């Protein structure tokens, strides 16, 4: 659609980028039908096409209002619409730009500002881990509403030493190591068996997504620069092949570093390189030739796949319902990889309806829009549990904790399940 940029945005990077994206949209509305918030709320302005019109109108110089902001806030940024759109409209980029411009015009009420700040800073802070530990220790004393967000303490197991010549960097992430520390160590153990050592970069931290998506875009860019600085020596020295992501929410962000820092002369080239080297764990594992054999061998010892979930008696294969995170299937356009690994390992994947829909976690969304997030969670769990799975698997920390808070069925990262299988079989 045609957009007449207002003078304030003409010639600006954001304005021109948004205009180029809007130009591709033919307002066919295919995206609207698949948007989870449109499905729940039924208002054109709570669907992608409506939001696109809202952003267009602000770019054309109409003042944004609290209502404009509300409709943009309600968007999950799940980017389901982007997958649906046949015209290649990059909605995710557009809504980032739209939010930045709208937030500059419309000040949020104090309470909202504080929550956002607390989320961005709190989850990012080195104090988050100790706070989480406290929450876990005092789980019984925490009110139910918050309890849901504090997962049970996990057995972590040992991380292998970096014994292999082949090395990859691992983004430890900010919340994941505090909430479900076993994911990263499980990933390290699985890759270790495939002949690759995962090495951390102690100075790296949050990928920047929290800040970037909570209106602190500059602080987000600083997080990105810090990570690049932390990784660069090893990248430059050619010591690492890739940067592994165990949370798809972080993965999608790091894959965008190149785009987001393209105009920072000091970082543009490095950021591009970092994005190119960034891979989701499922991509990395599936690319390893040794994987099928390893899985097949483990699977042969059927006992292994039953013992850790059931009552110990050898029985049928474990049933898994897999939820592909939006940041993986829509954000990174990676589909079917974790599923294939699980299937190759002999697990039975149950049929899950509407697997393209968001679970409602969406980063900090579930805290900011608990009602919509809760409804989406209920729907998602209903379709996940329809096939009576023993375990629910996913690939992103946000989805895992969000889903677990609504069900008694164990919710795990797929690599934890693979790790258990391989460890049992060893």
């Amino acid at each position, binding site marked *: 659609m*045609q957009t007449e940029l207002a003078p304030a945005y003409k010639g600006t990077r954001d304005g021109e980028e948004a205009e180029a994206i809007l130009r591709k949209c033919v307002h*066919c509305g295919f995206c609207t039908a698949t948007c989870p918030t449109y499905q729940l709320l039924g208002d054109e302005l709570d669907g992608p096409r*409506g939001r696109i*019109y*809202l952003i267009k*109108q602000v770019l054309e110089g109409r003042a944004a209002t609290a209502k404009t902001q509300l409709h943009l806030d309600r968007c999950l940024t799940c980017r389901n619409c982007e997958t649906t759109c*046949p*015209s290649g409209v990059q909605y995710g980029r557009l809504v980032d730009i739209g939010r930045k411009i709208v937030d500059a015009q419309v000040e949020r009420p104090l309470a909202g500002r504080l929550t956002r700040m607390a989320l961005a800073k709190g989850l990012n802070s080195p104090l988050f881990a100790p706070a989480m530990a406290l929450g876990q220790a005092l789980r019984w004393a925490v009110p139910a509403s918050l309890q849901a967000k504090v997962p049970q303490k996990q057995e972590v197991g040992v991380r292998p030493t970096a014994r292999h010549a082949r090395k990859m960097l691992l983004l430890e992430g900010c919340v994941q190591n505090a909430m479900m520390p076993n994911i990263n160590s499980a990933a390290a153990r699985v890759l270790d068996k495939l002949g690759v050592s995962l090495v951390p970069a102690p100075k790296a931290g949050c990928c920047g997504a929290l800040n970037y998506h909570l209106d602190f875009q500059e602080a987000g860019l600083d997080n990105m620069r810090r990570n690049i600085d932390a990784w660069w020596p090893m990248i430059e020295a050619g010591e690492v092949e890739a940067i592994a992501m165990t949370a798809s929410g972080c993965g999608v962000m790091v894959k965008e570093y190149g785009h987001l820092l393209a105009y920072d002369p000091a970082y543009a080239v490095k950021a591009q390189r970092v994005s190119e080297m960034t891979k989701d764990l499922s991509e990395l594992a599936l690319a390893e030739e040794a994987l099928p054999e390893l899985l097949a061998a483990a699977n042969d010892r059927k006992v292994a796949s039953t013992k850790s979930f059931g009552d110990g008696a050898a029985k049928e294969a474990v049933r898994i319902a897999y939820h592909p995170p939006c940041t993986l299937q829509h954000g990174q356009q990676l589909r079917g990889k974790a599923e294939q690994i699980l299937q190759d390992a002999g697990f039975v994947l149950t049929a899950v309806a509407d697997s393209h829909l968001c679970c409602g976690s969406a980063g900090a969304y579930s805290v900011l829009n608990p009602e919509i997030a809760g409804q989406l969670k209920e729907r998602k769990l209903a379709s996940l549990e329809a096939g009576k799975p023993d375990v629910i698997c996913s690939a992103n920390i946000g989805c895992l904790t969000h889903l677990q808070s609504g069900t008694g069925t164990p919710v795990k990262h797929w690599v934890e399940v693979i790790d258990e299988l391989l460890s049992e079989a060893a």
Partner: protein
Amino acid sequence: MNQPIASKFLRRQFPAALQDELQALLGVGRVSTAHAVREHHGHDESHFPDALPDVVVFPETTEEVVGVVKACAKHKFPVIPYGTGTSLEGHILAIHGGVSLDLSRMNHVLDVHAEDLDAVVQAGVTRKALNAHIKDTGLFFPIDPGADASIGGMSATRASGTAAVRYGTMKENVLALTVVLADGRIVKTGRRTKKSSAGYDLTRLFVGSEGTLGVITEVTVKLYPQPEAMSAAVCCFPNMVAAANTVIQSIQMGVPVARCDFVDPLCIKAINHHSKTTFQEKPTVFFEFHGSESSVKEQAETVQAIAADQGAEEFQWATKPEERSKLWQARHDAYLACLQLQPGSRIISTDVCVPISRLAECLEETEKDITASGRLVPVLGHIGDGNFHLCIIIDPNNPDDILVGEQMNHRLVERAIAMEGTCTGEHGIGCGKMEFMDVEHGDGVDVMRMIKRSMDPDNIMNPGKIFAM
């Protein structure tokens, strides 16, 4: 010239009291003045500039529609029925200002009479929603314009689709209507019977009336049994005329082809890019055959023999349901695909229809015209009906470009009318084709004006469309 200029001088003043009355009627939530909502309702698929309604309302029942129309009648303020806004000739533009009456919340299938092969739906039900609803009855509704349009909107534009060659257009498939007139009266036209000789055929008067005579709130449509066997095929031809000749001869021989759509190489290129398909970039016809196993085979063999005679390549078959639906979805999205040939462009979509015997001739002359113009003009169409479209891609900011495009459309319409054809086979007049009404109908347009005046004396129903008063 009959065509109005969408000018701000045409706009009627929005009566402040009307806004309050509408809110009292529907509540604040179903009356919107949000700019983004008005813009969405003041923008269609034509190349005309946007013309925003003053307010958009979302009624849910026929009675609420009556309330809205009566309120507007009291203030003599325009009402513009709005289905899904996919029409191509500026139909829904609020060139006089007005209340956009969005029927999307009237989306219930009211009754399915499987034994009588019909269904009664609210006007906002879309063609895909209806088919999803009746999926398990073994019946289907065959009319499929490329967009997922509303049944009310399709009735109002007398739409057709890829299967009209076999199943007809909305004209043949609407049995009865519930309509709210400009004065707020409700009339039910027609019965659920296959036929009726009782007086004037009011159903046919409202079908194709483009919202200028009343608001359609319920539609009774015909349904058809799913055929026992279906198969679709793609066939490439050495040129457009060979493709047309194949289709003409097949129709003349009485082969009951279910669908046959032509797509030219440029359009195929756009489709491949848009729908990630891998069709050959050649003049192509998409065929579909319905019937019993043996009759499908027989039909296909006959058409294949005719095609071979015209120098066509072998048929590429799509027999699995998912392959077939992918093929037709790609065809349905062709218009959107063409828009992406030049992002930011708009399309002047021509829509002439000629008697089938003149089709090849009309296509051939048109092809010469396109070549001489040196422009990007994909050609596609339901050629089994003698109907085809040029997608004249234009830059909406360049008046010269628009003019050249419109001149090409003019030449095409003159050509078609000289061949006893019509300026529009299925898209309708809107404000885009008003100028052709006199040549096509002569004094007939006056008769239409008399009807309009007597039914809508204050000209509040979608004013400025079809013909100037």
